[in-house]
């Protein structure tokens, strides 16, 4: 962990953050207003990516404290993953064109 390497690593992470934020703005600006509610629930599901950090805690079994916190965090994220994707899909199934409804 020499400082030089740390420095370069931070810069790399900042690059990634900048690029991802730019993509986020570009892509989301183009989401049709029709789909803003599904968008909210989808990003909600995606933000449950914190599960990755939480699994690490719950599975490394380092201290009781960290295991408990990790387990709670995994549960909370899992609620969002399951709930978020399901409700988004459910909403999208509702959007039909005229012909599709006729069928």
């Amino acid at each position, binding site marked *: 962990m020499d400082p030089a390497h740390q420095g370069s690593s931070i810069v790399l992470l900042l690059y990634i953050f900048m690029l991802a934020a730019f993509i986020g703005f570009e892509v*989301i600006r183009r989401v049709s207003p029709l789909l*803003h509610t599904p968008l909210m629930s989808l990003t909600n599901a995606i933000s449950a990516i914190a599960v990755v*950090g939480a699994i690490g805690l719950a599975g490394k079994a380092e201290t009781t404290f960290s295991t408990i916190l990790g387990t709670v965090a995994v549960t909370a994220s899992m609620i969002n993953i399951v709930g978020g994707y399901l409700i988004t899909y459910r909403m999208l199934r509702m959007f039909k064109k005229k012909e599709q409804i006729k069928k």
Partner: protein
Amino acid sequence: MNELIRDVCYLAAAASFILALKWLSAVPTARRGVLIGVAGMVLAVSGTLIQKEIVEYKWIVIAFVLGTVVGVPLANIPMTAVPQRTALSHAFGALAAALVGTAEYYLKATKFTHFELSALALEVVLGFLTFTASLMAFGKLQELIPTRPITYKNQNIVNLGVLAAAIICSVLLVLDPTKSYLFPIIAGLALTFGVMLIVPIGGADMPTVISLLNSYAGLAASAMGFVLDNKLLIIAGALDGASGLILSIIMCKAMNRSFTNVLFGAFGQVQTASSGEVEQRTVRSATAEEAASFLEAASSVMVIPGYGMAVAQAQHKVRELFDVLQKKGVEMRFAIHPVAGRMPGHMNVLLAEADIPYDKLLEMEDANSDLPQVDVALVIGANDVTNPAARHDKNSPIYGMPIIDVDKARTVMVIKRSMNPGFAGVENELYFEPQTLMLFGDAKSFVSDLVKELSGGGGH
């Protein structure tokens, strides 16, 4: 080897999330977007599970089961409850980020660099404040706690004080990571600030706030990524952060409120309507029978749905009205204001739930260019988004907000329960226009009366 697989999984997961959002941008590809989003999450979770540091699967499995058991019912709530559901799940997401940050701190406080510790402090502060703020928002939307804004003198100064205290403690902690007694203080201050942030905000302003909280939850996840050196977290968090920010900007624009105004807590200030002239004006009201005859005679009808339709759960009745008018050869379309209802896209999902084809839903600009040719504009539980004062009354709190120009239609009919104002608290001069008919009643029962009249009439 496991590391390589994980890295590839994470890279693919990041790409999947980006594609998910990209495909969500239009209806035909939107479902594919959700599926690839799921795939991304599966990749991310699998890549994590195979790491050799993971020695104990028991708690993970229990948490997965628990999460699924709670998550599935949360996905099957009625569409009208979507705003509070979103608030609740922001609370979960933020809690997860905050707890991971807390555990990481206690595991290896002294091993972090200054930069990592700063990111960790940001993660914890954002996480905890978003947690309580989202819970409060949930409470207000679900009407578990009073929805009206609670304000007191110097509120903004007190709030900023709490936030400043949290930041100062964080800085001290970063400078000397061994001062672990500071950590609970930071967490406590952030939790308190979350509550205080929402107290002065009225229930109706929640959607903008929820969207901002979404942004905060995303940023907390991104910060976690900086702490754990995890690019996937950074990317997913940044995507969320951007999404929340953009949606709140869109809402602010549609309400003609500046974003800084929203950011700095000026929302929640009760907007007192300028009731200078208490002139007594008359309104015309009509019965379901009369209204039905107007609809029957029309060749094109534009429905303007609003918050009232959502509250009354009237969308399925509206669909029946749509069917019966269609049978009679009357064209019925819907004009969707970007902030009608209580969250962006609220009306679209409700109407889609009731199987209204989405090509009948017009965006505001298209609706406005068609309205002068429309015979009947039928406002169902909408109010502010139709108020012509927004166009010309410089003193009105909603002045400058883009509205749906219902007053341009030949006849306007408004279904609502009373003359009470809507969210913005201002009287709607539309109701006093000569071409306007008020249809007093609950949206659901009134529309169902209309349907009865029309199908009765059709049966003659």
